[in-house]
């Protein structure tokens, strides 16, 4: 669906006409990301991150397919094959560092994309499905990145696999059999490495599929915008092409600059040195930490050090960690305020920033060793995380008095410009 004033695709050349009759692929592109897709005229740069995430996925798939041509998924040689990529394969170091840092860049843009949604209320009706599919993508990304990190078969790979599959052993009764089933053994070994490689190759394509659904669901109501006011008529929109192709193109350029700066100048900045030590099943590194993008969740996992009710600490930790993500599925119904954008939600806006700080604290605790004061810090921060979604948000959305809102996107835009011109007039 689109707005009634969307431009219609009319092929001119005979070849394009012929193609349009047989397989209307250019029409699909025209209506999805071309001149045939009207978009609110006031999107800011936070609306770039979806396209950037797509670019990051493409980079992961391309570099990943190349890596897979040189990599060997066998516990005896996996580590050496990655070193072979680094030292012997032509430009292998570049491809591998691009894949490694590409994963980090992917998570950076996805986190910004998610927090954009939280700030501007993009998860609310009529875009709940877009949000739900987004959470699914996030989960798939986490599974993919985890399994990818196991492939080089260094110390962190091995112990990451051991600890993360250990989550499942927390499930009462069937937990241990499930863990053994997942690993195909009693500890991570060949069987686990091979299946992780198989799934690590598959999941990105599943992600690509869900991304298509995500965009399909988005294109039904169309993009939201920084005011959160829905599009009312034609003057609220501009065609995606050339306006947002240009804006996204610029953003992509900036993204790629940061990406290559990281890849060329500091490729191991976000990694962990212990992963350059071959896996040793008999010795755990003194301080195991997951990749940075898992730190906040790891902190929630470790926040439970005591048994509570009839459930033991270990199971609590695992439940809390999964719940912290599963919560996001319920977000559209936890926040009942009809106002989307934080711009007009003075109270919610404050709590939004507290949440951002809270997640950063969790991240910091997740990276720190399991000792005081980090344990108590992660306990408080984890408690606040849940309180934000389960207590604060429902209450705020009931008691808050929203700021006065403009009647339309155009009015908001014109008011902003009027401010600016009057400001410059007085200056």
């Amino acid at each position, binding site marked *: 669906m689109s707005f009634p004033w969307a431009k219609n695709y009319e092929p001119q050349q005979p070849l394009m006409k012929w193609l349009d009759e047989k397989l209307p692929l250019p029409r699909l592109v025209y209506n999805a990301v071309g001149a045939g897709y009207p978009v609110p005229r006031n999107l800011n740069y936070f609306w770039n991150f979806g396209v950037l995430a797509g670019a990051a996925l493409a980079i992961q798939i391309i570099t990943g397919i190349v890596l897979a041509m040189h990599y060997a998924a066998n516990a005896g040689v996996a580590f050496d094959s990655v070193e072979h990529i680094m030292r012997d394969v032509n430009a292998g170091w570049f491809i591998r560092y691009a894949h490694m840092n590409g994963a980090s860049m992917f998570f950076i843009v996805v986190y910004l994309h998610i927090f954009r949604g939280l700030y501007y209320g993009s998860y609310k009706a009529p875009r709940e499905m877009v949000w739900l599919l987004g959470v699914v993508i996030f989960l798939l990304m986490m599974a993919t990145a985890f399994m990818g990190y196991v492939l080089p078969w260094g110390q962190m790979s091995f112990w990451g696999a051991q600890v993360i599959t250990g989550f499942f052993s927390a499930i009462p009764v069937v937990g241990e059999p499930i863990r053994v*089933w997942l690993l195909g053994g009693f500890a991570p070994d060949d069987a686990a490495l091979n299946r992780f490689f198989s799934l690590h190759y598959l999941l990105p394509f599943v992600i690509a599929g869900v991304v298509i659904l995500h965009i399909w669901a988005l294109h039904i109501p169309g993009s939201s915008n920084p005011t959160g006011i829905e599009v009312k008529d034609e003057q609220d929109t501009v065609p995606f092409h050339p306006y947002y192709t240009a804006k996204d193109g610029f953003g992509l350029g900036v993204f790629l600059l940061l990406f290559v700066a990281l890849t060329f100048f500091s490729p191991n900045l976000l990694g962990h040195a212990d992963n350059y030590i071959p896996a040793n099943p008999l010795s755990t590194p003194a301080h195991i930490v997951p990749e940075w993008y898992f730190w906040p969740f790891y902190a929630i996992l470790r926040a439970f050090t005591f048994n509570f009710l009839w459930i033991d600490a270990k199971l609590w930790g695992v439940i809390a960690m999964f719940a912290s993500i599963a919560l996001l599925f319920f977000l559209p119904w936890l926040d009942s305020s009809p106002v989307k954008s934080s711009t007009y939600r003075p109270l919610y806006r404050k709590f939004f920033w507290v949440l951002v700080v809270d997640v950063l604290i969790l991240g910091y605790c997740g990276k720190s060793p399991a000792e005081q004061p980090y344990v108590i810090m992660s306990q408080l921060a984890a408690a606040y995380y849940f309180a934000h979604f389960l207590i604060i948000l429902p209450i705020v959305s009931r008691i808050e008095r929203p700021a006065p809102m403009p009647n339309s996107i155009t009015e908001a835009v014109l008011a902003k410009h009027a401010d600016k011109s009057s400001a410059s007039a007085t200056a």
Partner: protein
Amino acid sequence: MRRVLRAQTGRPGIRANLSVQPCKGNRMASETNLNAGIEDGVRRRDFINIAAVSFAGVGAAAVVLPLVNQMNPSADVLALSSTEIDISAIQSGQAIKTSWRKQPVFVRNLTPVEIAEANKVPLGDLRDPQTLAERTKTGKENWLITLGVCTHLGCVPLGAAEGEPRGDFGGYFCPCHGSHYDTAARIRKGPAPKNLTVPPYDFTSDTVVTIG
């Protein structure tokens, strides 16, 4: 009467079919045709439909079994399941690390002090109550043989090798998330729910133990 009923219970397929029929006569004809063999409102076609779909469902479910089961440990992984260890060189107070089914195993020769410490603890204080005697073989209480796999998330606890920290209770300490085990390798503090697992083993002789 029958037709009215069917219209209400709604068989969309049939209704759609009927509505495209051009004239009434034809409509009657197809009606009779569809109803051929009808007894008590059940059509032969319904029966065939249910039977075929159920059969296919059972078939599909049967195929899932091998697809799920292939993930379980294969025969060669299971074949590694017994290991012999010579314990003659382990002095009192020392421990060694070996491996069984690719998992680390701690064999520890407890000192009399460590044994006394373990026996002193009231069972009520324990998260996973077990006596040292229950965790060792009769007459060989000084030989504490456990998996070196933390029951929290599976790291290898420290304390087997010389100079490694042994935690607040003198047994083992898991640095991953801070679990402390006592001299009977029982969980005392931290997130782990269970004592370190005692694998199945036997003394083949006074100095040789077979695990598995």
